[in-house]
């Protein structure tokens, strides 16, 4: 029997199997950030230890940083202290840090791929659930808790039970105005916010193969939003072309040797998955969420679902969610007014996302009363946007181009959406309070968000495309 992509990588990283328990899995790369690492550093220090393999860790500050005036000291004392601790911990333990002010600083899941740190065939972890992003390169990448961060710091290993495997095939051609964010929102709406719990997902099919690396990252990024441990896509020429020449990608003879290995990373034709789902790309519309988990998404032309067929328990939970959002069952989502537009986060803050938005808004102006924040995923994305003149397009449109960080994705740093306001967001979570206490989030693609910025409403972007 053949092996899946996942199994090929997993098997190469098992140090040891434990009877009736998990496997000891070796970790190649470990990303850390300021929020989930301080307690782990404290933990190993309490044991009188140093970080075991500091060269295999890359650190950045992203969650808790301001996205304006990054050259100034951070105003909030607790935030400043947390970022300062990261600096001290990294210095003490010899960990490379791309902190504030560094030309490589940015959201951890944006910088790993763009620096060429993320590579096919690797095991990659980070104390952050969207570590699944790195799976787009054909890596086993998943989020971990702080105790596990400590384990990896101490031993470069984790105790992991092998997950079940699911393959999601998306075949056919995407309709105009439909982008990778719509694919993943469609999948999550189809199988629900818990539909892939216990599974690792491989995305396959012609529609996936045709996507750019950045678009693939958007899809793998949101795997966690259906409960999956991670998501992955087999590497191919598009992957190799993206990687070649990046700072930490292998060079010369090393590149040739690794390339030969990477080309073996695919699921064999007779590999068996525990579950398989087939999707026709042509069925996907621009998507938007209406509720308070990412599984509550619909095509833009559809009505918010009715509660008529739900049982009492489902109804109570459903109405709680709609009540938070200030929405009614069985009404259209289209034409609802919005107050904020957030284009950013590890889901959609890469250069292609900014280009997509810039192409759409060029020569247009934002709607009155709408505030539009564009937050590039990294310093390098920011620089590239400036080099391409994208910053001018945003400026003319009345958008605010901020500095790199997680920003309004999580309501932790200064960037929060005010209570009761509606924000159309390219991020990945619409949970209650995610973007700030009582903020209301519609998740959508950068294209749909751009159209909302111009019209001030939730609209079907296809009506505005030539």
């Amino acid at each position, binding site marked *: 029997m053949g092996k899946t992509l996942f199994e090929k990588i997993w098997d190469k990283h098992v140090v040891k199997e434990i009877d009736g328990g998990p496997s000891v899995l070796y970790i190649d790369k470990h990303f850390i950030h300021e929020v989930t690492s301080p307690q782990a550093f404290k933990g190993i220090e309490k044991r009188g230890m140093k970080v075991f393999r500091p060269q295999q860790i890359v650190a950045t500050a992203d969650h808790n940083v301001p996205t304006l005036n990054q050259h100034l000291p951070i105003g909030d004392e607790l935030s400043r202290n947390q970022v300062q601790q990261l600096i001290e911990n990294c210095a003490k333990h010899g960990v490379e840090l791309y902190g504030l002010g560094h030309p490589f600083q940015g959201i951890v899941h944006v910088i790993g791929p763009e620096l060429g740190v993320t590579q096919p065939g690797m095991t990659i972890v980070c104390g952050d659930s969207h570590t699944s992003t790195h799976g787009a390169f054909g890596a086993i990448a998943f989020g971990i808790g702080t105790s596990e961060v400590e*384990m990896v710091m101490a031993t470069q290993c984790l105790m992991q039970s092998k997950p079940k495997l699911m393959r999601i095939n998306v075949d056919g051609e995407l309709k105009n105005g439909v982008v990778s964010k719509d694919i993943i929102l469609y999948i999550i709406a189809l199988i629900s916010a818990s539909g892939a719990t216990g599974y690792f997902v491989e995305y396959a099919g012609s529609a996936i193969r045709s996507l750019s690396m950045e678009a693939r990252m958007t899809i793998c990024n949101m795997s966690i939003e259906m409960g999956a441990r991670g998501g992955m896509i087999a590497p191919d020429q598009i992957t190799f072309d993206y990687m070649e020449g990046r700072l930490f990608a292998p060079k010369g003879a090393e590149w040739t040797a690794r390339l030969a290995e990477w080309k073996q990373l695919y699921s064999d034709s007779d590999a068996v998955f525990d579950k398989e789902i087939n999707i026709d790309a042509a069925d996907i519309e621009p998507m938007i969420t209406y509720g308070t988990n990412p599984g509550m998404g619909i095509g833009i032309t559809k009505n918010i679902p009715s509660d008529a067929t739900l049982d009492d328990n489902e109804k109570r939970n459903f109405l709680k969610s709609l009540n938070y959002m200030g929405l009614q069952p069985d009404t259209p989502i289209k034409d609802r007014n919005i107050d904020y537009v957030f284009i950013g986060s590890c889901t959609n803050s890469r250069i292609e996302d900014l280009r997509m938005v810039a192409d759409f808004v060029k020569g247009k102006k934002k709607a009155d009363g709408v505030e539009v924040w564009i937050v590039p995923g990294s310093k390098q994305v920011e620089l590239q946007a400036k080099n391409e003149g994208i910053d001018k397009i945003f400026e003319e449109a009345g958008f605010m181009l901020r500095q790199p960080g997680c920003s309004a994705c999580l309501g932790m740093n200064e960037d929060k959406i005010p209570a009761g306001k509606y924000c159309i967001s390219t991020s990945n979570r619409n949970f209650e309070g995610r973007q700030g206490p009582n903020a209301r989030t519609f998740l959508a693609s950068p294209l749909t968000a751009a159209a909302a910025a111009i019209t001030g409403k939730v609209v079907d972007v296809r009506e505005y495309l030539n």
Partner: protein
Amino acid sequence: MSKAINEVKSTVVPVDIENVDTDQIIPARFLKATSRDGFGKNLFRDWRYHNDDESQPKADFVMNDPKFSGKFLVAGKNFGCGSSREHAAWAIKDAGFDVVVSSFFADIFKNNSLNNFLLPVTVSEEFLSKLFAAVKENPAIEVQVSVQDQVIEVPALGLKEQFDINAYKKTCFLNGYDDIDYLLSIKPEIEAFEQSR
């Protein structure tokens, strides 16, 4: 103090809500601390309080109802989804809970709980709905759990179920062992593995 847990018997706090994500368990703005302690007061912060201080509790939230207390947190399905923040498990443990009961847990939350000696017990939908109904009727009702026997029961209802926990983690719970202790004990094997690649 040993972290080991085997038998727990107590009343319960019912959070009858599905898809409780870790942003609800502890909102991101309370993740700025650099130690593991003190997160309990921010558990379910935005469901518990109107403001960022404790002066305006929300009357309708179960944790503000003095009738309910105990070492068991009982919640609707898909508990702990979303962010990987271990602070969620720390907050629950810090607030005095030893066991979380649901019909379905998100993976990372479950791992984080296991790593903090907070026992996640997965029960059937039927067990869960009976338990919710019973607690609402009688907040004094007690639940008991045994890690050794892998059994959860509600004696007053004659309700009893086996639950799963892998053999390795069971040993950890019964003896108070951490994964990290185990990994450190096999460091020579890890180094040998590195050499062999």
